[in-house]
């Protein structure tokens, strides 16, 4: 008991350290819940193109990224926008968005990535979902 008291801080640190490792593993393996769909090869290539051209410095996915341009999580399913519209913008840029040097294959890969991001859920949360505790839950798209 005396030993325990003397080294209490070490024990408590070890406890937290083990919690860190365990919680990390839990998050890695079951944190995505029912969502089990994986990106196909084309989308995986698109994801890297997204990073290599630093689209995230101006755009957000699920609200994460830079704030110069709009969130692109659900641009593919947007009735007024969608694939063709996105392609045109990516191909030629706008007054604010620089034209980025990409060939058609790379643009298709980017689009494939954005489509699968879109299928994973909605970026915005409807204020109606908020519950008594100031929390909310989100419907999960479940896929095989």
């Amino acid at each position: 008991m005396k030993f325990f008291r003397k080294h209490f801080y070490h024990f408590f640190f070890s406890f937290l350290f083990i919690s860190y490792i365990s919680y990390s593993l839990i998050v890695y393996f079951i944190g995505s819940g029912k969502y089990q769909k994986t990106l196909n090869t084309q989308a995986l290539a698109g994801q890297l193109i997204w990073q290599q051209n630093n689209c995230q410095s101006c755009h957000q996915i699920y609200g994460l990224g830079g704030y110069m341009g709009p969130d692109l999580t659900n641009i593919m399913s947007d009735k007024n926008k969608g694939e063709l519209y996105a392609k045109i913008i990516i191909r030629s840029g706008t007054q604010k968005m620089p034209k980025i040097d990409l060939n058609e294959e790379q643009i298709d890969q980017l689009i494939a990535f954005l489509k699968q991001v879109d299928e994973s859920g909605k970026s915005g949360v409807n204020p109606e979902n908020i519950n008594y505790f100031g929390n909310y839950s989100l419907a999960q798209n479940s896929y095989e």
Partner: protein
Amino acid sequence: MNRVSFYLLRFSLILLITALCVGVAAAFVFFDTGFFNQFLPFYKLRPIHVTASIFWILTAAQGGVIYYLNDYYKLEHKQTLLIKASYFLWLLSIILILISFLSGKFGGREYWEFPPILAIPILLSWALFAIHFFKIILKNKGKKPVYIWMWSTGVVFFLLTYIEANLWQIPWFRENVIRDITVQWKANGAIVGSWNQLVYGTAFYLMAKIGEDENSAFNKKSFFFYFLGLTNLIFNWGHHTYNVPAATWVRDVSYVISMTEWILLINIMQNFKSKISEAKKFLNIIPYRFLLASEAWVFLNLILAILMSIPAINIYTHGTHITVAHAMGATIGINTMILFASLFFIFSKRDSNFSLINNKTITIFFWSANIALLFFWAALILAGITKGYYMVSLSQTFETAMQHVKPYLFIFSITGTILAFSLLVLSIVLLRAKIFSNNKA
């Protein structure tokens, strides 16, 4: 003497100056994007700014820790091969990172947008630093003050969380969009928690020195807050991804843990009176002033952070400039202020005249930096509230929202310029201190 710590501290100031100049440019891009796109587009400016900012914090913290450890254990200030190699790798990788940004080479994730191969020398450099650090710690037995616990935690957890931030390179992590985003922001949140351990540890050390009160570094309350910080590092990163449809408990755990931050807030309020009398005693000491400023910023940023951690509020603030207010409010108001305290503390030990000669300049720009920061921070919050209101409550388009956000971004840019100028002057004062000559106090 251990020259490496001084090299690190000076290099950190160069990084800060880079971050400031590029940050100001990035802010003005919002007003004429087309113009900037021709030669320095936002997608280059933002990563240069953010990376230089983060490495300013890490480098200044690291340099300080190496110096204080020598001081604490009364070691010969000898430079070992280990720490020299670590410094060399660190310098080299940061320079390579900046070059790759300028030449338009990216490939990483947010905050670490450089080509991922450069993560290797960064990690290696940190590992060498960690070995140096623990060689000293483990050689010296006996009860350790809380700041040594905090530094140890920061050193270890930066290594772990930085590896975690690179897990996306393994396809299994990035092929599931939800897992990918969750793990990435778990890591990013915890990395910030790690450098905070280094920086807060430094603040603790300085306060113990200035107040000549070593006991405070051993008492139970200090350890309680240290463990509270560590708990938050481990579990409280979920507010970055509340809106991501991951398993519900990811959000719940984070929400519950983040509410423990009320304890911190209440503690600050309880100590308010004793703070005032402490301030009266030490206000003429320059490092103390910066520490006091950092405490005021802890208070303000804590309120913002607690509010943002409530999911019902987060849905309006997420993805807006409130996030930027949260990030820069903390990195400038808290981290930068503490690191300035640390730099002024160390440099005036090395060059006893420099803070006397520059006392007036330091006082003026200390105040202008903090006042400008207040307006800068508030403008970002207002910009964020405006965007959240137009986009979430009124379901307006991004273009419409940004039209209404613009005036606040204008205030942000102007006050940001004043802030940058003030911090620049303070950095130059520090760079001109004669830390290598031997006129020790």
